[in-house]
């Protein structure tokens, strides 16, 4: 971690041939399969942390966002501050967010998790609210006229109709959380981000940096595909309509 504060030597990168350390004279490829093979356990451990943080952040964010969105739909008085506050939270840089949390939660993964939950919450509340507001009032009134209670209306009318918007929000939140988790390296819990700064600190070892970056993108793609599949399974009527 101390290496993060250090300012590396300028000429070490600008000209690989004029190295300071012996490592510089070794080839520094962008990708090396043997690196991935040899460090598979480390990479897997970081990827595991990355997945755990992302899943926890999105799940907690969704659990908090749903009641907030429901409350914001009910009263206009509440929806303006909820949306306004979410804009402000989204503007705060992640570096600043994590730095502000450190005095409270220390150098733990909790720091990263709290920050990630805040960001995912912002995206999810907006999308959940948009989805709920997209449910036509006539339909809800018809449901009431048919004698459905509030909870029944939510489960049987609101939720199915707003599901595409909910899933879109979940996908955006998940993908951006995967990318954001890397900044957790500030407190030593950045998942695959550890490889990115680790490679930078290890005399600019490119293979490690690229492995971390590509790992993040693959993780985000896999999560997005998974959620797209879930959405397909949950909305069979959408497929029927398209066919």
């Amino acid at each position, binding site marked *: *971690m*101390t290496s*993060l*504060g250090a*300012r*590396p030597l*300028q000429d070490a*990168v*600008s000209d690989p041939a004029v190295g300071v350390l012996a490592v510089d004279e070794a080839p520094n490829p962008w990708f090396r399969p043997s690196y991935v093979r040899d460090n598979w356990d480390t990479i897997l451990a970081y990827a595991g942390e990355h997945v755990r943080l992302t899943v926890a952040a999105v799940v907690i964010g969704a659990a908090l966002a749903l009641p907030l969105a429901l409350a914001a739909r009910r009263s206009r008085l509440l*929806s*303006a501050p909820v*949306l*306004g506050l979410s*804009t*402000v939270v*989204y*503007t*705060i*840089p*992640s*570096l*600043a*967010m994590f*730095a*502000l949390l*450190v*005095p409270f939660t220390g150098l733990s993964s909790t720091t990263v998790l709290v920050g990630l939950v805040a960001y995912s919450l912002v*995206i999810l509340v*907006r999308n959940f609210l*948009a*989805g709920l*507001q*997209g449910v036509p009032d006539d339909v809800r009134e018809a449901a009431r006229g048919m004698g459905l209670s509030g909870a029944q209306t939510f489960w049987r009318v609101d939720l199915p109709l707003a599901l*595409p918007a909910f899933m*879109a929000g979940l996908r*955006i939140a998940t*993908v*951006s959380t*995967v*990318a*954001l*988790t*890397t*900044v957790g*390296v*500030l407190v030593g819990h950045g998942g695959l*981000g550890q490889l*990115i*700064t680790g*490679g*930078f600190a290890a005399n600019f070892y*490119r293979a490690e*940096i*690229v492995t971390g*970056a590509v790992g*993040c*993108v693959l993780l*985000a*793609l896999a999560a*997005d595909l998974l959620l797209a599949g879930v959405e397909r399974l949950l909305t069979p009527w959408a497929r029927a309509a398209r066919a």
Partner: protein
Amino acid sequence: MSDFSRALRYLNDPLNWSRPNGITDLTLEHLGISAAAVLAAMLVALPVGTALGTARRGAGLVVVLSNVSRAVPTLALLTLFAVSPIGFGNRATAIALAVFAVPPILTNTFVGFRGVDPEVREASRGMGMSRGQVLARVELPLALPLVMTGIRTAAVQVVATAGLAALVGGGGLGRIVNLGFGQQDYGVMIAGAILVAGLALLAELVLALVSWAATPGPRRLPFLRARTAGGGVGVPEPTASGVPL
């Protein structure tokens, strides 16, 4: 909260502002890198977005670009440019940030120009305007609110992200956070965090006012527009494209 009072004391010390590499220097460096990045991104994204938007083609490309940019960690791109032949320093940081600023501007410009009513275009053509006149006097004013939103989103994102450059040896206000972290002095770290967050919020405010002033027609206050901005599922949500931080 001794950490917070230490942060306040750090911010109140005039020497911390005025000395070389103090807060003033770092803020100017931060703003310089950000401005260069946003201007470079605008040079690329505005013409391409306008061309694609008026032709109403390439929606798939724009969506893919804005989605992919969300998945690539900014930290990774900053690091990759630093270890590439460009070398690290402010130039690599600005290029990496510009890459991230392109998708929001491109998406919004594209959506803005695509949203212009074809009948309005036909009418202005029928009134004898040339293609250039239609573009400059009809389409641009109609698309301007969204274009400005894109530039604002990108600029705020760039100002916020520039703080990360310090993690990989770059300049800007993030260095104060990094310095505080390296010395285990949470007061300095919080002071840096406050400065970075404050600068990002200030950029948001200033640019919101600029886009409000630049928007022709009946002017609504920028923060009131958020209420109507909901809806629209399926189309790329212009304001949320790109990664935060």
